[in-house]
């Protein structure tokens, strides 16, 4: 039996004259993402993308898993492709959907006929296939109002397709329709979720990670790579830049007041990140901050951090509770890795009593004890580049 996947394009179709561009982008992304699994024919028509494997050995579970993580697809279904022949449609619907129909209590059949040359009309198709299913499975009854399973028969130009209910897709917009941005990633729970959320809006990610050896270890950096690999299953290839941050942190620790340590550190991170972002044609920065979560994420502290960067800073988690963030991290599978207990650059030198309502003037005065430009320049010039693949 020939199994295919029908992917439904969501928001993309709303984009008027840009629609073709979005659609092309999405097809390109699907092709790239499925390439390691084998050869496919991928074609779009009528706001549906048909993904057809060209090799019998392709595992459709793997294909479905990957398709479910591509942004720009709102829903997808695994369908059986048959010839446009009513007898073949009847027998295929029984055979292909047996595992679902054996379990279900009620069903209905919906038919869509876009190929008007097919001799039966939609209501007729539904009736024929419906009664055939009801005859074959004594456990299941027709219920047109509230069915447990909806069997769909689509008669399209390219062939006839039979499928049960669609699965939820990743939603969002195809990458990189949203542009490119730099995500500041530490290894905690929040930043990978922030990265995922912006990627969902079609943003291509450039990751910026701060490492402070020997205060932080290789394992901390590896943890970030692992997290990015998981995010990359959704976001595609990610460029990662690791910034040597030890000197700057030591300098802050030595020469600035302890209670402002975190805020000044974050400002320096912003300044370094902006330079890296500009080098790599990013138009914005992304952070995993959530209002009030810790001392450095109060409105006053965020105002001070924000001031250090000239480009827009997106904070997709700003209004979310920790619980909500964890829920997403569990969904995208980063949670477990985020919990690994390695010291990261944000936990090194944390002050006992950080200031929760810092004033920008005060921070600037404290900062002036050090000549930062050279240190920032040095950090930017010594970043290490890694490519992350899903």
């Amino acid at each position, binding site marked *: 039996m020939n199994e295919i996947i029908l992917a439904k394009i969501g928001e993309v179709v709303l984009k008027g004259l840009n629609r073709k561009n979005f659609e092309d982008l999405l097809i390109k992304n699907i092709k790239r993402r499925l390439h390691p699994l084998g050869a496919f024919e991928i074609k779009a028509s009528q706001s549906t993308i048909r993904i057809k494997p060209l090799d019998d*050995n392709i595992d459709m*579970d793997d294909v479905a898993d990957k398709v479910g993580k591509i942004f720009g697809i709102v829903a997808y279904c695994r369908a059986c492709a048959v010839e446009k022949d009513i007898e073949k449609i009847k027998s295929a619907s029984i055979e292909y959907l047996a595992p679902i129909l*054996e*379990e279900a209590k009620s069903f209905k059949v919906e038919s869509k006929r876009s190929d008007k040359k097919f001799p039966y009309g939609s209501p007729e198709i539904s009736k024929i296939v419906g009664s055939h299913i009801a005859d074959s499975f004594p456990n299941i009854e027709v219920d047109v109002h509230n069915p447990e399973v909806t069997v769909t028969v689509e008669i399209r130009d390219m062939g006839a397709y039979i499928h049960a209910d669609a699965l939820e897709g990743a939603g969002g917009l195809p990458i990189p329709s949203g542009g490119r941005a730099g995500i500041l990633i530490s290894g905690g729970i929040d930043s990978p979720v922030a990265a995922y959320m912006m990627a969902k809006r079609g943003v291509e990610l450039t990751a910026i990670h701060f490492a402070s050896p020997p205060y932080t*270890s290789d*394992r901390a950096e590896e943890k970030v790579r692992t997290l990015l690999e998981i995010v990359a299953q959704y976001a595609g290839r990610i460029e990662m830049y690791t910034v040597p941050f030890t000197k700057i942190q030591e300098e802050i620790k030595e020469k600035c007041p302890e209670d402002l340590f975190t805020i000044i550190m974050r400002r320096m991170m912003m300044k370094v990140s902006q330079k890296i972002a500009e080098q790599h044609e990013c138009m914005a920065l992304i952070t995993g901050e959530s209002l009030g979560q810790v001392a450095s994420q109060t409105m006053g502290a965020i105002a001070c951090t924000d001031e250090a960067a000239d480009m827009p800073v997106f904070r997709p988690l700003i209004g979310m509770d920790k619980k909500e963030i964890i829920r997403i991290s569990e969904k995208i599978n980063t949670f477990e890795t985020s919990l690994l207990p390695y010291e990261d650059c944000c936990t090194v030198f944390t002050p006992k009593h950080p200031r929760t309502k810092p004033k920008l003037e005060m921070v600037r005065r404290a900062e002036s004890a050090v000549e930062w430009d050279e240190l920032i320049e040095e950090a930017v010039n010594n970043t290490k580049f890694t490519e992350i693949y899903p």
Partner: protein
Amino acid sequence: MEIYLDNSATTKMSESSVKAVMDIMTNIYGNPSSLHSKGLEAEHALKNARRAVADSLSVSENEIFFTSGGTEANNLAVRGSVYARIKRGNKIVISAIEHSSIFECCHALENEGFQVVYVKPDSSGNISIENIADAVDEKTILVSVMYVNNEVGSVLPVESVRRIIKRKNAPALFHVDAVQAYGKIPIKPQKIDCDLLTVSAHKIHGPKGCGALYIKKGVYIKPLLYGGEQEKKIRPGTETLPLICGFGAAAGELGTPAEISARLKNIEDLRNYAVSELKKISGIEFNSPENALPYILNISAIGIRSETMLHFLEKKDIFISSGSACAKGKKSHVLSAMELDPKRIDSALRISFSSDSTKEEVDILVESLKEGLNTLVKSVK
């Protein structure tokens, strides 16, 4: 020429698996939990092995837990499940032809107050899904069914068990002992929809002393051992890195599902050839069901005690087994559950192939069995 046809007992290690074990023992001797780079290097090796085993089952690395072998993984699955669900019931359903590491473990649990139902096979060695369905109820907290029986090769209906559990509304975890199926048929725990699945390294040309339990994401079981944080506290203790990496190498050599299926087809041809040749000898009876996994062929050389024939063949450098290797001469509980004629049980022999097995080897085996039947004194009455 050495003819090894006891591959369900254990397999010869592959070269790359031996190399992996040696490499870890001599070079990567760090403890994966150590914070320094020697430790990190070991952790990388561990991670790669875990990925290889996870890939061989199409599951996530986070779902693979290394153990000291199939027996430990089976014990962990059974005890870990029932202790985790003890408040929701006390009934365990297993087949009567499970491996002793499940069978004896459940026996012991009976003494702790659990009720165990042993689903019997038919006389050909097959377990019917209806009989499993009859046993499962709303007090059942564990259903454990092997994928392929180790003695006769029958393939159990694991793919239908989840449906039964759902239909009966049982609060049961579902475990599959896939030791004898691993690497021989394509296995996907997601497709079987099981919570737990056991595999072992030494049945796939890896080292002895290492196995793994797949635990589906979100499923919680209790550990058997308490200690450090290794294997997410489900199986503490410093990882046996050399063996684990040998396992990883062997798992990496299993190939794609298509390659596994192609090998299965070759073995099926070989088994069919063996059966047709053996049928020409009078006094041979077949104990494996016709739809058995072709890697395992159980026969009886009527009149000759299993052990006698085994030693007779051994003199000719032919190695097969009487029943299962773990039973060591004890009367097989599998053949007994099939209610075979005691004469057949006492003279049962298990031939188990690997992809290295050849037609020539089968020819020599058949000749030697014929000679044994003709020359040995019949002692089984």
